[in-house]
C-alpha cells in the first residue's frame, strides 16, 4: 500500500504510453482508494469475526481490540451444540451434484451447437437463454405441489434438479463460446480416422476446452451455493442448505455480531475461493460468453 504514490512501473510493458503516463499516479491513487472503499465492508466483516462479542458491539468501532477465534468456535456450535456441518454438506452436495449434472448435459449440447451445429442452432441457443429470464419464483408453486405429492420435500436431490435447470442455460452458452475455440481441422482429422462422438469429446474436445469447462463448473457451483429462495421454501430440517442456516443465526437475545460475521465468512469461503480461481473467465461466464 506504500506504493500508491508511485508512477506506472517502467519495467512492465505499458499498454498505454504518451501523455497519460505522468498522470498515472493520481489515477492509480484514486483506484486504490476506491478499491479499499469497496473492500471495506468485507474487511470489516473479517475483522469483526475475529473480535469478541462485546468488542464487536462498540460505538465507536474498536479496531484494535484483541483477536479471538470465539466467533468461529460459536459457528461450529460450541455453546449451542448445533453443528454447521449438515447444512454445509447439504450445500456441497447440491452444488457439486448439480454442477456435475450441468456439465454432463451442457457439454454435448454445446458440441451440437458449435462444432457440428444443428439447423437453426441460434434459435436453440436463444431458447436456452430465454428460460433463464423466466423468474424462478414463477415456477415455485407447481414445483412445491409436485414435490409434496411425490414426497420430495426436504430432499436435497430436488434442489439438485432445480439448480441444474437454473445453471444449464448459462453453462450451454458458456461452453459454446469455449468449444468454438477448438480447431476444426483436428476434429475433421479425428472423424476421418473413425473416432466416435465419445472419443472425440473425451480425447480432443475436453483437453482443449478444459479451462472453459473448469470456469463453467465454478460459476455453476457459485450460483448453486448462493441460492436461497428454493432452499428456503422446499427444504426443512433435513435438507436445509448453508444460506438457510445462515439466516437462522441471528438471535433476538444477546450479542451475536461476531458470531454472524464468522458464519458469513465461513459460508462465503467456498465462493470466494471458486471466484478468485475463475477470475479471468468470470466475465465471459457472467456475460454468457458474449464478452471475452
Amino acid at each position, binding site marked *: 500500500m506504500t506504493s500508491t504514490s*508511485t508512477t*506506472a*512501473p517502467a519495467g512492465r510493458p505499458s499498454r498505454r504510453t504518451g*501523455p497519460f503516463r505522468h498522470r498515472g499516479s493520481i*489515477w*492509480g491513487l*484514486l*483506484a*486504490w482508494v*476506491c*478499491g479499499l472503499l*469497496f473492500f471495506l*465492508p*468485507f474487511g*470489516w*466483516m473479517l475483522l469483526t469475526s475475529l473480535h469478541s462479542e462485546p468488542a464487536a458491539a462498540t*460505538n*465507536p*468501532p474498536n479496531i484494535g481490540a484483541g483477536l479471538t477465534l470465539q466467533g468461529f468456535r460459536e459457528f461450529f456450535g460450541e455453546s449451542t451444540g448445533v453443528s454447521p456441518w449438515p447444512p454445509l454438506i447439504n450445500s456441497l452436495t447440491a452444488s457439486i451434484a448439480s454442477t456435475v449434472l450441468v456439465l454432463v*448435459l*451442457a457439454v*454435448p*449440447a454445446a*458440441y*451440437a451447437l458449435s462444432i457440428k451445429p*444443428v439447423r437453426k442452432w*441460434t434459435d436453440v441457443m*436463444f431458447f*436456452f*437463454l*430465454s*428460460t433463464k*429470464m*423466466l423468474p424462478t*419464483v*414463477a*415456477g415455485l*408453486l*407447481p414445483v412445491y*405441489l*409436485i414435490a409434496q405429492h411425490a414426497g420430495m420435500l426436504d430432499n436435497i436431490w430436488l434442489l439438485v434438479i*432445480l439448480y441444474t*435447470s437454473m445453471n*444449464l442455460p448459462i453453462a450451454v452458452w458458456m461452453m459454446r463460446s469455449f468449444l468454438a475455440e477448438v480447431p476444426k481441422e483436428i476434429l475433421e482429422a479425428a472423424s476421418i480416422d473413425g473416432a466416435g462422438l465419445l472419443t472425440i469429446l473425451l480425447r480432443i474436445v475436453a483437453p482443449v476446452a478444459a479451462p472453459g469447462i473448469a470456469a463453467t463448473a465454478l460459476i455453476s457451483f457459485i450460483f448453486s451455493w*448462493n441460492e*436461497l429462495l428454493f432452499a428456503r421454501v422446499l427444504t426443512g430440517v433435513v435438507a436445509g442448505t448453508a*444460506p438457510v442456516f*445462515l439466516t437462522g443465526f441471528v438471535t433476538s437475545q444477546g450479542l*451475536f*455480531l461476531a458470531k454472524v460475521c464468522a458464519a458469513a*465468512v465461513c*459460508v462465503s469461503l467456498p465462493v470466494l475461493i471458486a471466484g*478468485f480461481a475463475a477470475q479471468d473467465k*468470470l*466475465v465471459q461466464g*457472467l*456475460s*454468457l460468453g*458474449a*464478452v471475452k
Partner: protein
Amino acid sequence: MTVPLTAKRPRLLRQGVRESSTRPANRPRGAWARRAPLLPALVFLIVVTQLPFLGTLGISFMRWNALDPDNRGFGGLANYRTALTDPTLRSSITTTVILTASVVLVSLLFGLGLALLLDRQFRGRGIVRTMLITPFLVVPVASALLWKHALYNASYGLINGTLTWIWSLFGSSDAPQFDWLSTNPLIAVEASLAWQWTPFMMLILLAGLQSRPLDIVEAARVDGAGTWQVFRYLTFPHLRRYLELASLLGSIYVVQNFDAVFTLTSGGLGTANLPYSVYQTFYQAHDYGLASAQGVIVVACSILIATFALRTVSSLFREETS
C-alpha cells in the same frame, strides 16, 4: 443499429442452410445424429422450467387457498383482479421498478468509473481488481446480514460508529446517529445491492474497454483529440453495447432479487418487491391461486426486459459468429 442486425441475420443463415441442403440423400440420419447430443439438455430444461410455469398459469385461474381446501375451483380472472387492485401488490410493482432501476443505474455508473480507472496501468492493479471483485463473491445472504447488522445497526453499526469517531475527533460527543434501516429502508436495500453488483458491471465494462481498437485511439490522439473527446466520440460509442449488455443482464438478476429484501427488511416498510410478495402470498398466506396470478404478472414484466436483453445479446453474438 441492433435491430437491422438481428432482423437480417437469421434470414441469411437460413438461406445458407437451404443452399447446402441440395444433397438430401443422407440428410435425416445425419441431422438426428447431430441433434442427439442436444436433446438431453433440451428435454431436461423443458420439463423442469417450462412445465411448472404452465402449472402456474393454470393455477392462476383457480380459487385455491391451502387453508380452505374445500373451496377449490375455477375462479376465472378473479385472482388477477385481486392482484392488480390490491394496493400492496401495486406498491410492490412500483418497488420492483424503483429497486431494479436504481440499483442497475448506480452500479453501472460506479462500474464505469472503476473500469476506466482499472483500464490504466498502475502499481498493484491486480490487487485492486481482486479487492473490487470481492463484494460479488460474498454469498448474497451473508452480504445482507453484514449490511444489516455490522453496518446499518443503529447502536453499534460501522456507519454510526464512524460518525461517532469523526465527531469525537473534534471533541464533540453528540454525533448524529441514524437508524438507517427504518428511516431509509429502500435506499438501504439499494445500497447493499449496488455494492454487490458494481463489480459485475465493472468486469463487463472493463472487458469492453480492453477490446477497444487502440490504433484508432492513438490516431485520434495524434490528430490532437483530448481525453474528453476520445472518451465522448470513440470510447463511449464503442462501450454503448457493453453498457446495454451489463445493464440488461444486471436487470434480469436484480429484478429477481429475494435474498436482500428477505434478510434486510423482511419486505417491511415498503421494500417488498414482486418476488418477495409472491413468496409471501404463497408461503405465509397460502393463497395458491393469487400467488400464481402474481407469478404470471412477474413473468409478464420480465418478458418485457428479456426482449430487450435478448436483442442486445444477439447483436453481440452475431457479430462474434459472423
